[in-house]
């Protein structure tokens, strides 16, 4: 079984910051906007190097989205930065009308997504953002899994014409994807080949899926692990090819099971190839205060939960 090495824990938001720094050097049309969270979003470097292209909006996210939409008129490529909650739910109508419906080339970059924001609690832990964003016509939705992938995705979306939601997080997590990768929007990554069960994960749950596959392997279960970094457009072929082999699937995400990656995959399977599916996700609940590890354990979003889900789905599989 293929294994992956953690080259050292890093936060995905720093991957975003590093990508933005790179874009500052290579693409003069890239501008950055932030709503009073420059440090949290790791946008300081861009601000320092390109003050004329950095716009401090203040605590006014609705205004930030509108200004970003306006800046595209004149050829700029705006990257907005704030927490995922304030990047989506708070400004849904602004994104819907001024960005998505108006076909504007805005990159909505969202940190501190999900439970792993930790101690600040449920007011800040959005678990509904993927659903909100994937429902908007024309919106590309990306949820990256580690530092390197987040950096590569940040660079890649500048070359993609159209609105993008890029979701990442706060905690330090294993960094295991290649440093020199090219990020391909909409292309699933086959991390481990397997034959008994497909595990599809996104964001912070991808590393957990790799850990789960190790445990399952020790039990004699061959798990195929796929990283779906792009929730929309979804790489349907990768999912169907894998499930045609394994006949069952576990989906894992730091998001509500209503509206998330799992439901997108259910739709694809129901249309083309019905198969048993288990959801590692939050189940229609808000989060709460705690450390990221405590929360991920309490809400069943770790390797152990994925192993259990795989065991359960295997029992439901008809050969």
């Amino acid at each position, binding site marked *: 079984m293929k294994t992956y090495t953690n080259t050292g824990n890093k936060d995905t938001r720093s991957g975003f910051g590093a990508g933005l720094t790179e874009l500052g050097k290579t693409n003069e049309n890239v501008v950055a906007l932030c709503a009073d969270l420059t440090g949290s979003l790791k946008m300081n470097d861009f601000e320092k190097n390109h003050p004329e292209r950095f716009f401090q909006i203040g605590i*006014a996210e609705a*205004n930030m989205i*509108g200004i970003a*939409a306006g800046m*595209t*008129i004149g050829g700029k490529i705006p990257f907005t930065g704030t927490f995922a909650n304030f990047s989506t739910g708070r400004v849904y109508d602004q994104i819907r009308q*001024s960005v998505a*419906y*108006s*076909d504007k080339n805005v990159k909505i970059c969202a940190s501190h997504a999900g439970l792993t924001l930790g101690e600040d609690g449920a007011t800040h832990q959005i678990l509904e953002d993927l659903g909100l964003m994937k429902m908007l016509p024309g919106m590309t939705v990306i949820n990256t899994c580690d530092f390197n992938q987040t950096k590569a995705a940040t660079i890649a979306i500048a070359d993609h014409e159209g609105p993008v939601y890029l979701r990442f997080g706060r905690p330090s997590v294993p960094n295991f994807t290649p440093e020199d990768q090219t990020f391909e929007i909409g292309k699933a990554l086959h991390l481990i080949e397997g034959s008994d069960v497909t595990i599809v994960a996104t964001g912070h749950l991808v590393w957990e899926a790799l850990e789960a596959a190790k445990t399952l392997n020790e039990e004699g279960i061959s798990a195929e692990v796929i990283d779906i970094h792009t929730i929309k457009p979804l790489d349907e072929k990768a999912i169907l090819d894998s499930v045609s082999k394994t006949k069952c699937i576990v989906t894992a995400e730091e998001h509500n099971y209503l509206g998330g990656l799992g439901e997108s995959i259910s739709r694809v399977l129901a249309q083309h190839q019905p198969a048993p599916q288990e959801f590692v996700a939050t189940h229609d609940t808000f989060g709460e205060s705690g450390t990221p590890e405590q929360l991920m354990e309490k809400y069943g979003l770790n390797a152990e939960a994925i192993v259990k889900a795989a065991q359960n789905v295997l029992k439901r599989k008809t050969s």
Partner: protein
Amino acid sequence: MPNTQELKDLTTQVRRDILRMVHKVNSGHPGGSLGCAEFFVALYQDIMDRKEGFDMDGIGEDLFFLSNGHISPVFYSVLARSGYFPVEELNTFRLIDSRLQGHPTTHEGLPGVRIASGSLGQGMSVAIGAAQAKKLNNDSHLVYSLHGDGELQEGQNWEAIMYAAANKVDNLISTVDLNGQQIDGSTDDVLAMGDLKAKFEAFGWTVVEIDKGNDIEAILEGMAKAKSLAGKGKPVCVLLKTIMGHGVDFMMYTHAWHGKAPNDEQLENGLQQNPETLGDY
């Protein structure tokens, strides 16, 4: 550049267009559209420095953003009569498969429209973004926007008003259509906004008042003044006092015609008050 009489003739024709568009589909917003007819005609025929044709980025020309998108009839009529698309297309207003959606949008690729609007309160932020992009591009042209007075009840406007002054967005001229009416009644009855001039000035804007907002000469003079105040470190607000439904006597001084179309008889009456000048579409 057209003379004042030509602008007045065009305004009369635009009023006919507005009435006929909303009558045909028995929907749309004639009141605010009629009240802003002179402003749109002055803006597109005289005030703005526009290029031929339409390019979304609008580099090297003045830009306009309509924030109160429900007055799309006047916007569409003036865009068509300023050469952005054939006037015959006004016939398709609010019909299925039309580029002239109920509220303006870029989605169907209608030339002249740079942002969707309709959900209120978003246009000033967009105009600020476009104005800042112009500065980044070393483009000295101006950005204009129009907002309803009732629309200022949306909080996003005040985020934008605060930001534009703090960041010296002085290539922006935002006009507020002060007709004092909104759907549920007068703005004072629904949610009084107090002294808007004092509010804008307190937020750091320069304010120009046009008391006769349905008088072409007064608009030209007031907007020329607004232009002369651009580039001096402050965004410019124009408070344009208009009469909702102007030019059609039974639609004036009331909010009743905010979003209601005239019947056959009312249309005839309204058209008689505004005789054909440049030819109907």
